[in-house]
């Protein structure tokens, strides 16, 4: 039981069996942004990060090798699709699944970088993403148990179904673990990796899922 449609009235609802995918003004705008940046990841060449060698005049531009580029682009596109799915899905379990997919793609995007510092950060972040699945799926399971449904449309249209506050908090914490919205230190270290269009997908996806989870928490 939340307020009516904080993201606006859905334009239309796509039906996959018991899973509804709905396009409200809010979800559509987030979806389009994810789409635009996925397209950037598809067509943009990675930038060559310029580094200065301290104590000398030398400088060099880091090149991203082709194999690494291909793998990271694949991960970035997968991440884009996962965040697009998370933006529009109207089913809570599906939402948590997409979010954990986003989490693992984020690790994948920077895991290929040959830089110990970046890989350490990615490793730390990966462990957090791993452990965040416990509150994440736990919240989905508790919602199913307390309300008997996982459909967001059902949860907001039926006022008698109330999700306990602590379950909502678990959901938010799980998403934070996957997206790391407030504790961003590891993500910032990951950002030192070259290859801008792919690294941007990390941050875009986590901001998007954070925005979506706020809507979800207000809705249910």
């Amino acid at each position, binding site marked *: 039981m939340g307020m009516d449609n904080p993201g606006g009235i859905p334009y239309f609802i796509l039906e996959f069996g018991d899973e509804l995918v709905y396009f409200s003004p809010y979800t559509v705008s987030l979806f389009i942004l994810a789409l635009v940046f996925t397209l950037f990841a598809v067509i*943009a060449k990675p930038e060559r990060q310029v580094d200065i060698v301290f104590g000398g005049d030398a400088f060099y531009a880091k090149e991203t090798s082709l194999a690494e580029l291909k793998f990271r682009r694949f991960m970035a596109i997968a991440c884009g699709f996962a965040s697009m799915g998370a933006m529009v899905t109207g089913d809570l379990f599906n939402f948590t699944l997409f979010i954990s997919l986003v989490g693992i793609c984020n690790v994948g995007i920077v895991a290929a970088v040959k830089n110990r510092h970046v890989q350490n950060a990615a490793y730390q972040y990966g462990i957090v993403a791993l452990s965040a699945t416990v509150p994440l799926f736990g919240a989905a399971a508790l919602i199913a148990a307390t309300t008997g449904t996982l459909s967001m449309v059902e949860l907001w249209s039926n006022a008698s179904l109330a999700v306990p506050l602590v379950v909502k908090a678990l959901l938010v914490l799980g998403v934070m673990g996957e997206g790391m919205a407030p504790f961003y230190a590891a993500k*910032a270290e990951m950002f030192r990796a070259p290859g801008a269009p792919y690294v941007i997908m990390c941050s875009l996806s986590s901001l998007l899922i954070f925005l979506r989870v706020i809507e979800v928490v207000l809705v249910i």
Partner: protein
Amino acid sequence: MIGYLLFAVTFGLLLLGIHRKAIARIQRRPGPPVWQEILHMLKFSFKSTWIPATASDTLFVGVVLVAIGIWSAALFVLLAGGSILIIFGIYMLHKIVEHGFGLSSGSPYGKFGGVRSVISAASEIPLFVSVAVVALYTQSLDISSIIQYQNVHGPLLFIVPLAAVAMYLVILSKMPFGPFSIVESKELVSGYKTEHFGVWRAGLQVSNGLKTYVLLFLFITVFMGGIPLWWTLAGMVVLTLSLSFVCALSPMLSPFDSVTVQMVITGIMVVYAAVLGVFA
């Protein structure tokens, strides 16, 4: 609509100019004329422009288009009285613009601006708490119904002053030269926008003008209600001047301290929202 868009760009840039002028006068400098930012936009647009050899070209250009696009969308949502959640979504996504600007060029300065922008992502949370507090009272997130609520109950500024403070801090963190504007601080040259010169910077100026206009307009609308346009514009100038005083008189915090301060503010706001939620 297109006329209003151009007006918003110009007025927003004028506000930024007033901001600079006020800071300069407070610090006993002559300062640039108030229309300096508008001149900047025009001047940059005439300058010779290319894409740096090390840059990721599509992202380098595309992010400028995205910056202008998202803030024009925000302006339209605001004018149509749409959901406040969409505007704040766009506000959060401005982070992506900063990342894109910073990371796409390959320059170390831009990179550090982008990295700092990632670190300070926590600064956006007070925003959602203030949204939640507003929603507690109005039971809706539509700007049109927030205005209606204020027509009946008086301005929200006097009902939930702390939420207004939180949103004020959020706007402060987006104003240049403020205590939280670590993404464009001077030790990084210009932070995330270092490498975007010429036409790209002119495009960034356009989006900055729109951003300033939208954020200040939003503050006035959400906390003062639907007052006539002239009064709103006057209110925006007053708000800018107050922001200038804060910016001129406070030092810039070091990056991690800035984040910590913002997280502390967030904590206070969460407690405030929880207390209101229990007793309201």
